[in-house]
């Protein structure tokens, strides 16, 4: 019998949202919080043994990383006498401040801190989450990837990460050349893999959005299944704060760690040219404006630090909650944090 949609069903869906009586309780089991503490200690030990200095930089700052698709929380600070009011930003990553430390002479530093990203909530996202971020002066692109592989091996015990170029991953799992295929071909590949996309994407001439669609839809689920995978050499359009290596095609010296199809970390052979950073900030703000978003401050103390000289270095940001998810076999982020956003 074809059952018409029942009001009970409707009510049950609505009830899930309304049931707040249990919201004082933690969403993570206490045993999981013990594992969390142990993993946190293991990460600290990993860096301490290698002579890294643990640092603490501000969670709230006049500067913020200028990203196209990351929305920072902000807060207004009342004007002091004779001064304009200031807008301050909750950090989406401690990147700017840590690079200022490198420019000031720090050798190898790491930080475990809370970062904040507006509107990011899902099985793998919470707007407030814990980031492990590290930088080492003198590290090449390759050395940066090796250090990340060591950390993955030591904390997860699932073997040394394999490395796979972004282009190779796409050819293997999406059947397209991500650097050269025209958008129409990327769209056909998505269709072929049964991936649905927003109607609004059809109108934009946004190549990186199509690549992201394929990445999350059919490439990523295959990454890091047997052992961790490090994907490297991203398209130049997705360089963020990484150096771009000239060539045909040019490659952003950016790499990411995936385990069980989950994105765990993002690293750069760091951009050091302040003028290039100024150009990228302008470009990103142009794109943000076109998308109806607020613009983010293009000037920053990081630029000043880069003017004075940022040394060659490679840095990585890793989502600690996701590392724990993978280590403990959790399927949602609320299983590994005591109080997710709705219960915070």
């Amino acid at each position, binding site marked *: 019998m074809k059952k018409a*949609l029942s*009001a*009970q069903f409707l009510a049950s869906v609505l009830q899930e*949202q309304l049931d707040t009586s249990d919201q004082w309780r933690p969403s993570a089991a206490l045993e999981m919080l013990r594992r969390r503490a142990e993993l946190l200690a293991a990460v600290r030990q990993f860096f301490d043994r290698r002579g890294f200095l643990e640092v603490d930089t501000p969670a709230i700052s006049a500067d913020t990383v200028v990203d196209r*698709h*990351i929305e920072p929380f902000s807060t207004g600070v009342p004007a002091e006498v004779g001064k304009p009011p200031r807008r301050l930003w909750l950090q989406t990553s401690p990147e700017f401040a840590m690079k200022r430390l490198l420019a000031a002479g720090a050798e190898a530093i790491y930080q475990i801190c809370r970062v904040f990203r507006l509107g990011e909530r899902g099985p793998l996202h919470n707007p407030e989450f814990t980031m492990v971020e590290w930088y080492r002066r003198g590290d090449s692109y390759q050395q940066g990837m090796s250090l990340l592989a060591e950390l993955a091996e030591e904390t997860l015990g699932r073997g040394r990460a394999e490395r796979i170029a972004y282009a190779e991953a796409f050819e293997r799992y999406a059947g397209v050349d991500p650097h050269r295929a025209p958008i129409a071909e990327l769209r056909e590949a998505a269709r072929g893999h049964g991936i649905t996309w927003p109607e609004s994407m059809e109108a934009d001439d946004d190549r990186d959005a199509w690549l992201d669609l394929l990445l*999350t839809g059919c490439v990523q689920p295959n990454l890091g299944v047997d052992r961790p995978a490090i994907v490297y050499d991203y398209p130049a359009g997705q360089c963020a704060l990484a150096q771009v290596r000239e060539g045909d095609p040019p490659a952003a010296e950016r790499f990411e760690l995936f385990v069980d199809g989950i994105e765990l970390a993002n690293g750069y052979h760091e951009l050091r040219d302040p003028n290039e950073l100024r150009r990228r900030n302008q470009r990103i703000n142009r794109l943000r404006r076109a998308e109806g978003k607020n613009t983010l401050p293009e000037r920053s103390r990081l630029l000043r630090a880069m003017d004075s000289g940022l040394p060659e270095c490679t840095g990585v940001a890793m989502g600690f909650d996701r590392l724990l998810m993978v280590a403990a076999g959790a399927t949602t982020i609320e299983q590994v944090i005591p109080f997710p956003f709705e219960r915070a």
Partner: protein
Amino acid sequence: MATYNTSEFRKGLKVQIDGDPYLMIQCDFVKPGKGQALYKCKLKNLIRNTVLDRTYKSGDSIEAADIEEIEAQFLYRQQDQFVFMCTESYEQYELTADQVDENWKYLKEGMVCSILLFNNRPITITPPNHVVLRVEYCEPGVRGNTATNVTKPVRVETGGEFQCPVFVEIGDLIRIDTRTGEYIERVKE
């Protein structure tokens, strides 16, 4: 026209797509660290009962649907029209046989059902979970056979037919689970 922005997307949202009402039954947030946020949604068509897969990106929006659930008493059937009256406002609502679907088999005069209204027009009804109906016709039962695993078709007062154990007889009152269409028990007057 009211709309919901992606930041408001959540399970249970009632929306309107191409003129049809939908209930968001799933909404998965997918986002590469540096990439665009996508919302992979499953939307249930409240009229056709089909499920639609749609993906949205941040900044997209969907039209909100005006959907309300009311309690209404079944009054009578006139050919293909089923007439109900809201127990609160006493307003009358007419549903077509299509909208009532298989539920016509349960509808007895005076029965209170819930009705979903879309833009103040009825779209579906849900009868109570259990209804008691009088048997109008069936083949005679085998005396003494109380087995419940052997069944026979039984026609009830609404004209609907149900599979019942063979001991059920004409004039009996039987209780039916409307969610499964299955016989539960015989009821004493």
